[in-house]
């Protein structure tokens, strides 16, 4: 395996990460703005990406903005927001074809960075606030998005599980915001929130591709200048103790029930036990060879999917399954039995080895994609621990069965959420 290097350059107001690799036909640039998540500004922060993509001073309409991207040989651009642990991250990403493969073009990286600077730093304004027409229209867009979550049953069930499980924690704040906040958001208040983001958030900039590092660095220094005065940093929290088990059931007109379980692991990215948690999750439900898939789906034909995922910064683990509504008890029992089996040490050497290989495989697969590389490194910024891909592989390889069993005993069920059919599962078509 080739060792990737995140070549960091620290500036007063941001950190630049240059990652040089010949893997890609593109250069990818990402700006990541982060601040601790708070209930009072979450809806505004969720709305900012929508508004910024609708135009800037130089490209006053969305269409003008998108036409410029077409000029940049169909560059792919997005602004997204997400929750990582108890932080809210706004990410600008631009994928550009590498100019090496385009005859007569040698300024594409230049133009791309200027574009990002324009969109981030020169939004379309009306006096000293955002354009109110855009803000109102994008409030509608976000409102619709929030309202349609209920149509995506898996996503809805995840959201509801976290609502219930993390009610009194910052992690329970919905990263896409709340409808009840909409009345208080206008072009001025949203612009203030944007100002805070652009000047005060922690900023990390990534450039990944077949680069000449000095060249890339000098372009960035000359083209990307924002007056910043960052005053927040990543919030890292102690994981919560599990509460008494909560069972929540909700009914809707659906065919397939969603049984989602939330656990507390007590383990976060910095912890020594983190590699063992990764292996535990792999044995439990992370992969098609895992106990959940083999038992819930293959052995008992109860579900089309049954899997687990862990969260790295808050110490959580989730189990997801889609089941026939009347199979609730049976499915829940089988899921809990798989956890018990690991606690009792029912983990074969083959299972352990196979899981480690699969985790290493997915890491390698991740770093074969530009966005994968960026997210993998950014995880380290959020998690507060640095390591190379090589070190990560070694850490996984050295996990023992005893360490996995020890982790399995820390993992405790907190909340069971079940989305079921209103008529209890009879065929309603």
């Amino acid at each position, binding site marked *: 395996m080739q060792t990737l290097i995140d070549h960091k350059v620290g500036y007063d107001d941001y950190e630049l990460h240059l990652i040089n690799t010949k893997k890609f036909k593109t250069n990818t640039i990402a700006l990541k703005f982060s601040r601790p998540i708070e209930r009072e500004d979450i809806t505004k922060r969720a709305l900012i990406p929508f508004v910024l993509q609708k135009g800037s001073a130089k490209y006053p309409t969305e269409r003008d903005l998108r*036409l410029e991207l077409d000029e940049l040989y169909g560059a792919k651009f997005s602004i997204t927001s997400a929750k990582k642990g108890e932080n809210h991250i706004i990410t600008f990403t631009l994928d550009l074809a590498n100019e090496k493969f385009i005859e007569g073009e040698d300024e594409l990286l230049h133009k791309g960075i200027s574009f990002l600077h324009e969109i981030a730093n020169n939004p379309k304004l009306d006096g000293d606030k955002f354009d109110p027409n855009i803000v109102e229209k994008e409030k509608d867009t976000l409102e619709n998005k929030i309202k349609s979550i209920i149509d995506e049953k898996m996503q809805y069930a995840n959201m509801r599980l976290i609502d219930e499980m993390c009610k009194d924690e910052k992690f329970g704040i919905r990263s896409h915001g709340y409808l009840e906040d909409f009345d208080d958001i206008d072009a001025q208040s949203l612009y203030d929130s944007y100002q805070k983001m652009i000047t005060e958030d922690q900023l990390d900039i990534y450039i990944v591709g077949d680069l000449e590092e000095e060249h890339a660095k000098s372009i960035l220094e000359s083209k990307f200048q924002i007056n910043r005065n960052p005053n927040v940093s990543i919030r890292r929290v102690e994981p919560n103790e599990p509460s008494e088990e909560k069972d929540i059931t909700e009914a809707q007109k659906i065919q397939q029930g969603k049984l989602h379980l939330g656990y507390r692991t007590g383990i976060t990215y910095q912890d020594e036990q983190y590699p063992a948690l990764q292996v535990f999750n792999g044995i439990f439900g992370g992969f098609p060879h895992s106990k959940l898939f083999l038992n819930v789906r293959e052995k008992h034909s109860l579900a089309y999917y049954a899997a687990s995922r862990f969260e790295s910064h808050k110490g959580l683990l989730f189990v997801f399954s889609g089941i026939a509504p009347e199979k609730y008890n049976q499915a829940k029992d089988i899921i809990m039995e798989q956890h018990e089996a690991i606690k009792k040490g029912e983990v074969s050497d083959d299972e352990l080895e196979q899981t480690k290989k699969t985790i290493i495989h997915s890491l390698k697969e991740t770093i074969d994609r530009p966005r994968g590389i960026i997210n993998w490194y950014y995880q380290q910024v959020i998690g507060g621990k640095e390591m190379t891909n090589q070190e990560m592989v070694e850490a996984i390889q050295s996990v023992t069965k005893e360490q996995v069993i020890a982790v399995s005993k820390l993992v405790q069920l907190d909340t069971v959420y079940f989305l079921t059919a209103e008529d209890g599962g009879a065929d309603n078509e």
Partner: protein
Amino acid sequence: MNELKIPRINESIYHDRLENGLDVFLYPKDELEKTFAIFSTKYGSIDQKFIPLNEQEMVTVPDGIAHFLEHKMFEKEDGDVFQHFSERGASANAFTSFTQTAYLFSSTSDVKENVETLLDFVQDPYFTEESVEKEKGIIEQEIRMYDDKADWRLFFGTLGAMFEKHPVHIDIAGTVESINKITHEDLYTCYETFYHPSNMQLFIIGNFDLNEIETLVRDNQNNKSFEDQKEIERDYGNEPVQVHKQQEVIKMPISTPKCMVAIKEKPEALQQDVLLENDLVRDIVLDLYFSKSGRYFEELYQEGLTIDTLRLEFVLEESFGFTAVGANTMEPEKFSKRVKEMFLQIKDEQIDEKEFDRAKKKKYGELIREFNDIEGTANNFMQYNQMGLDFRNIFETLENLTLDRFKDNLSKWVSEEQIAICMVVPEGE
């Protein structure tokens, strides 16, 4: 093997057709960690009426059988094939589309063993009455999961409105009723007819040793015997040019209505010699008019007829084709009316050289960018090869596409009888 150069990106693919008829493509990319291999047969959900191997009469098999067969290929007398891949940390998967069934893996070690397993499991069917019965429960859950997905229902609703006879209007997984009719004898009939090497192709891309893998594939195939097979006769029905129904309305428990408007292709647009160009023209038209930089998108957005991005689809196959524009919209009636008008007026729109060149530039950059994605690259080459086309020619076809040719192409594209509409609306409205 023959070296197929891709001059625009300085890379090469190696190709050979083996004695048994199998098309083999090897595309080494040393700088990556991963290898992706896909073994596919030209057999999809639309192939439900055909003359079985060594028989004289057409038979019709139950809907959803190609997909059912795909599921059952993984099960062998000694257990599940997934295991062999995951023991080596590789991930295996499969999919069934309208026109192909494909088995694939990605791995970052043990490439030789994985390729051997891939070839062997697909070429060694094992179906029993018992295992077929057991699978029905799992596939039933899969079908029900899709039944709850409004976007999926919209898509198949649109296909159902467009196509009367052609089996593309039938859901890939079939229905709960149709899959319950499937027997293990049916599976063998389909397998023996469609899984002959002369109806299949193998594509391997990523980090592997060219000579080693070439020898392995050749030896593996030489050790198996296949009787010669002539061209398979398939019947897709006699599909009229006009759409089956102008409008289809589906009621579901959703909050935001959805609408899709589609153009059914004329058979002459699907001829081999024009297919690549038509593919590009459809792609560019959707970009020019309905992407975020498109003028119609801007109109629809300003008129409040779409909530966010439009869903753009185009599929051109030998026996069917369509182009579709869909949206989440609060006003599905108005949306469908406007998009229909737009489809009919495209051929009369003024478009200048500058706009057209920008659209070509965008497409060119996207093609370069797509080569980052090794799965997508493999799929592109295979999908076109299956239709007797060489995907590399897309660069040349794009460069040779002039504005006059483009306009001429559009003038022959759409008439009103080729347009169908589908809406998914909340229940009770």
